C-alpha cells in the first residue's frame, strides 16, 4: 500500500473525521513514523487556519452609490447591456 499517497489523498476526510473505520488506524499509525506526511498534515492545517483568518477586504467608499446609479440607468434604459446572460441564471 502506498501510504504516503493515500495520506495525501485523504487529508480532508481525515480532518473531517470521515475516513472509514478500517482506514483511520492505518493513517494514524503512518503519521507517527512518517515525518513527511506529518509535515504535510500540519501544513494542510496551517493553510486552513490562514484561510479562516483571511478577513474580507472592506468595500471601497462610494461603491454602493455607484452600483445604485448603474442599476437605475439600466432600468431606465439609459445604459443598455448586451444580453449574454447564459445559463448561469436559469
Amino acid at each position, binding site marked *: 500500500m502506498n501510504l504516503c499517497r493515500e495520506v495525501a489523498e485523504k487529508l480532508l476526510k481525515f480532518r473531517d473525521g470521515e475516513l472509514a473505520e478500517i482506514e483511520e488506524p492505518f493513517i494514524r499509525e503512518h503519521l507517527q513514523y512518517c515525518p513527511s506526511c506529518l509535515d504535510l498534515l500540519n501544513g494542510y492545517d496551517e493553510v486552513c487556519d490562514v484561510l479562516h483568518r483571511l478577513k474580507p477586504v472592506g468595500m471601497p467608499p462610494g*461603491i*454602493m452609490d455607484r452600483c445604485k446609479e448603474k442599476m437605475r440607468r439600466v*432600468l431606465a434604459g439609459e445604459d443598455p447591456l448586451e444580453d449574454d446572460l447564459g445559463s448561469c441564471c436559469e
Partner: protein
Amino acid sequence: MTPDAPHPALLDPDLLLERYGERIYRVARRMTNSDADAEDVMQNTLIKIIRKADSYRGESDPMGWIYRITLNEARELHRKRKRRPAVSLDALPVDFDETQHAVGVSDIAGRPDRAAMAGEIDERIRQAIEELPDGYREAVVLFDLEGVPYAEAAQLMGLSLGGFKTRLHRARLHLRAVLETFWKQHDESAKDESAPAAGDDA
C-alpha cells in the same frame, strides 16, 4: 409571497443592495483579488439579478442563486482579462519518489516566525487563490472563505459532493505548496542578507 412571484428583494435595487450588496462584493473581491474588478463583477451581477428576477422561483433566501451569478460573472471577467494560465491541479500537488514516499515536504507549521510574517503570508495566499483554476478557486471561496456548507457549495457548482471535496482538497494542497515556496524564498533571502558581500575581506 407565492412560489410563482419573484422574490421581492430581487426587484427593488435598494433592498437588493441592502440585503446582498456586501456579500456580493465580498465574493467578487475574493474571486478577483482586485478592487476595480470586484466592482465590475458586482455591478454586472446586480444588473443580471434585476433583469432575471422573474426567473427565480425559489421561496427561500435567493443567496445561492446570487452566489452562482456572482461566480459566473467573476469567471467571465477572468476570461476577458486573459490572465496568465492558471496552475494545473490535474495531479495531486505533492511530490512522490519512485517508492511513492512523499518528498520535499517541509515543516511550515512549526516555524517560530509565523506570527511575525502573518501579513505577508495572507497576501501571498490571496494571490495564490486568484491564480487557481476557476473551479478550484470557487471551491475555496465558497467553503473556506464564505463558510457555505459542503452540500450547498457542491450544488451551487453543479458538482457531486465527492467532486467538490476533491477540488477543495487539491486547492488546499496547492496553497500548502505555495506557502512552502514562500518560506523557502524567505529563508534564502535571509541567508543572502546575512552572508558577507563578495570582496568584504579584500
